[in-house]
């Protein structure tokens, strides 16, 4: 399995929900080897502003069409300019990078928990989980939990209809589905329906992933989380994308894992949560100053 630098052709780049865009790229070599949970480093535009590539997970992979998709939220200058790029242009892509979601290693129901734009990598995962034998080697009982801040940010229901699985929805403001966070919803459904996931997959904001991790750790449930970090290279070279990790031999010593090569998929227990720092939140109004 190699890594490639390809000039991908933009087949589509369109808004699919509030501040949320879907980019469809023709990019044969990367599409051929991509696995769910992995990511690419995308150069937003020519020139030195922005300088660094931006990491985005595979949202959907169609190796047979030499195509993959990413789903992105406009949060800053890079993603803003990306949203302005038109169909027919090319963008430089490096990938596939990082590890992938591992298939569930024990039988039983699977919970997939996505918060906000965290739904991006979970969508391909759901496809592979739902496809008999592709990823897991059998039909899996999948429960999908999907929360956003408000209904307008939510992907339309039709996005998930082909998956044919129960979608539990929440919004922080109650404009769609359960009113509360997706973790509240997850806890509530489990309590009510009295089942326990054998494996959890999750992606979302850091506080959300923390909550999922705490739930999983306290019950000994394996949880695979897709984590983020600021990245420069995506290749394990710059050592910029460090996250604090427990060192079993020396619990108080500093030790770091690197999101781009040890991740982005981490077991809940392989992160030292008490040393994690969420990124500063810049208000969207000032995003394009």
């Amino acid at each position: 399995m190699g890594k490639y630098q390809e000039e991908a052709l933009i087949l589509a780049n369109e808004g699919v929900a509030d501040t949320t865009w879907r980019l469809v790229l023709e990019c044969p070599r990367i599409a051929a080897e991509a696995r769910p949970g992995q990511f690419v480093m995308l150069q937003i535009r020519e020139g030195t502003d922005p300088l660094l590539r931006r990491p985005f997970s595979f949202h959907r992979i169609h190796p047979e069409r030499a195509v993959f998709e990413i789903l992105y939220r406009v949060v800053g200058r890079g993603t803003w300019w990306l949203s302005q790029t038109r169909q027919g242009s090319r963008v430089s892509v490096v990938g596939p990078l990082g590890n992938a979601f591992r298939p569930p290693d024990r039988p039983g129901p699977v919970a997939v928990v996505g918060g906000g734009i965290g739904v991006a990598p979970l969508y391909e995962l759901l496809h592979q989980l739902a496809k008999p034998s592709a990823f897991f080697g059998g039909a899996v009982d999948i429960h999908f939990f999907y929360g956003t801040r408000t209904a307008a940010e939510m992907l339309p229901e039709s996005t998930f209809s082909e998956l044919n699985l129960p979608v539990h929805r929440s919004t922080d403001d109650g404009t769609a589905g359960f009113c509360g966070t997706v973790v509240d919803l997850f806890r509530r459904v489990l309590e009510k329906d009295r089942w326990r996931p054998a494996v959890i997959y999750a992606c979302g904001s850091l506080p959300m992933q923390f909550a999922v991790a705490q739930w999983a750790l306290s019950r000994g449930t394996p949880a695979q989380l897709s984590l983020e970090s600021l990245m420069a290279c995506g290749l394990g070279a710059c050592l910029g994308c460090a996250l604090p990790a427990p060192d079993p031999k020396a619990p108080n010593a500093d030790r770091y894992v690197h999101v781009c090569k040890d991740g982005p998929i981490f077991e809940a227990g392989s992160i030292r949560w008490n040393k994690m720092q969420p990124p500063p939140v810049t208000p969207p109004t000032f995003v394009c100053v």
Partner: protein
Amino acid sequence: MEQDAAAAGHATDLRVRLGPLTLANPVMVASGTFGYGEEYADFVDLTRLGAVVVKGISLEPRAGNPPPRIVETPSGMINAIGLENVGIDKFLEEKLPALQSRRVPVIVNILGNTADQYVELASRLDGIAGIAALELNISCPNVKEGGMAFGADPAMAGHLVEKVRRATRLPLITKLTPNVTSIAAVAKAVEAAGTDIVSCINTVSALAVDAFSRRPKLANLVGGLSGPAIKPIALRCVYETVQSVRCPVIGIGGIASAVDAMEFLLVGARAIQVGTANFVRPTATMEILEGIERVLRFLGLSRIEDYIGTLDAECRFPFAEEACRF
């Protein structure tokens, strides 16, 4: 980019001599931006590089700084990695053999908190096959001890180089910081102390903060600025250094294209290192190498040595003679 240019490449002589060190071409990678080489093997034919300078190595493994460690800035980035590295033992055991098997000259960038640590590193690396040179990092702005403290003071820098010089027969490169009043003064001091080669620049000391959360953008607060933003500063430092020492100089700082690389050679650098550009385009070094050949051919030169240091700093006025008639 014409494909045939690269193919016909062998017509151009890219060899450069840097004192005791001869390289097949002047394109190296900068320490800390290329891992231990293996990380880029999918994108770069490592054997085609002038040399690989590996991530800075210390005696003991280092965990590095807590995150966030990097932040983007206009046409640049600040890093405060804190010299995370595997330590010399693991480097020799695991990383070096892989690189040696690639048959590319390896330059080991070393760093200590004390002069003795530098000396010990240098003597341990002395006899080892496949190491082409040592690069003394006395200029890293992201660590509390050692590093820049040595590089900011000509006397201390000279003293350190003198000690290390005695500990190794390997060609010795000393890497300078731009964060000084006179880089020429430091360059002269390390030359007098016996360094074979000087490389410059390391990153420029810099800070980024978040106006909304009111917190620094790097856990380490201060970090080192690199990338195209610093190219004009690096070029000035290299020029000043070339003017002040006789030993060969390696140019580093913001090089992202063949034209950038040529600019450093023009002011007298005898080789260059590509750093941050590797992050932006993993294939950058290969593109630069091919571009250099293309530019030389365009200029009608068959040897890169005929280009190095040929900056023409005189002002000329092509209309002067004719215009004087009026």
